């Protein structure tokens, strides 16, 4: 990915991410999150992860965000005047988080991961294709895959039980 494209995408990502955190109404937060997910999908596409990009849009921006929007509308959430909490908490949290991010940026840019740069090398044909991912998923990661199906079953059952009218 060329540095210019990366820069544009990074700016868009950070702006829409800020929108998620700072928007006063939950609907706007959700819409900003959808934008973030779309820009991330573009980034995945440019990183030779076509299947992941497609799933990002279908599963995340499609299924999961619809679930969020559905709940927001079901509960009829309005704009909140005190959406951001106390002022002291706000500035304290911002300070600590930016400290963390700056420290991470410092270590990541000065560490051993110097621009060598494997990101410029062309990948083998078929890298990130459905075939290659499925082959790895159903051989090396088959146990995790089966556990995942069990996790989904538990999640579905528990969501139904929790959302039922009375819990007796």
């Amino acid at each position, binding site marked *: 990915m*060329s*540095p210019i494209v*990366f820069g544009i995408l*990074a700016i868009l990502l950070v702006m829409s*991410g800020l929108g*998620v*955190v700072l928007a006063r109404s939950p609907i706007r937060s*959700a819409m900003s*999150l959808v934008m*973030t*997910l779309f820009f*991330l999908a573009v*980034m*995945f596409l440019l*990183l030779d992860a076509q299947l*992941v990009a497609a*799933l990002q849009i279908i599963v*995340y921006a499609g299924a*999961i965000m619809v679930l*969020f929007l559905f*709940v*927001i509308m*079901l*509960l009829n959430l309005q704009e909140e005047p*005190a*959406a*951001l*909490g106390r002022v002291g*908490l706000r500035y304290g*949290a*911002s300070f600590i*988080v930016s400290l*963390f*991010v700056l420290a*991470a940026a410092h270590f*990541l840019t000065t*560490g051993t*991961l*110097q*621009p060598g*740069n*494997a*990101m*410029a090398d062309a*990948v*083998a044909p078929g890298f*990130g294709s459905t075939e*290659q*991912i499925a082959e790895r*998923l159903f051989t090396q*990661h088959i146990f*995790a895959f089966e556990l*995942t199906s069990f*996790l*989904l079953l*538990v999640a579905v059952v*528990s969501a139904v039980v*929790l*959302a039922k009218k009375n*819990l007796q």
Partner: protein
Amino acid sequence: MTAAPISWFLVLAAVLFGLGALGVLIRRNIIVIFMSIELMLNAVNLVFVAFSRFLHAIDGQVIVFFVMTVAAAEAAVGLAIIISVFRNRETINADDLNLLRW
């Protein structure tokens, strides 16, 4: 042709993760806190995909599937809990739900 180095992606992911963490810390609406958690999970996905490209290893992309699955399961259960809480307490403000607070 020049390409963006891996460290740029990692720094971008750290920034996105930080934004998500900030959302969890300062927002009072449980649903927005939840969306901030999704933002953090996505930052981690970006790291996985970037390293998958960097190391020319497909496993990073396979792990992203598992992260997405866990995120979907978490969203389903979490939103069911939110609906249940709202039905009982008529609020989803994190400051009002202080029964278990020390």
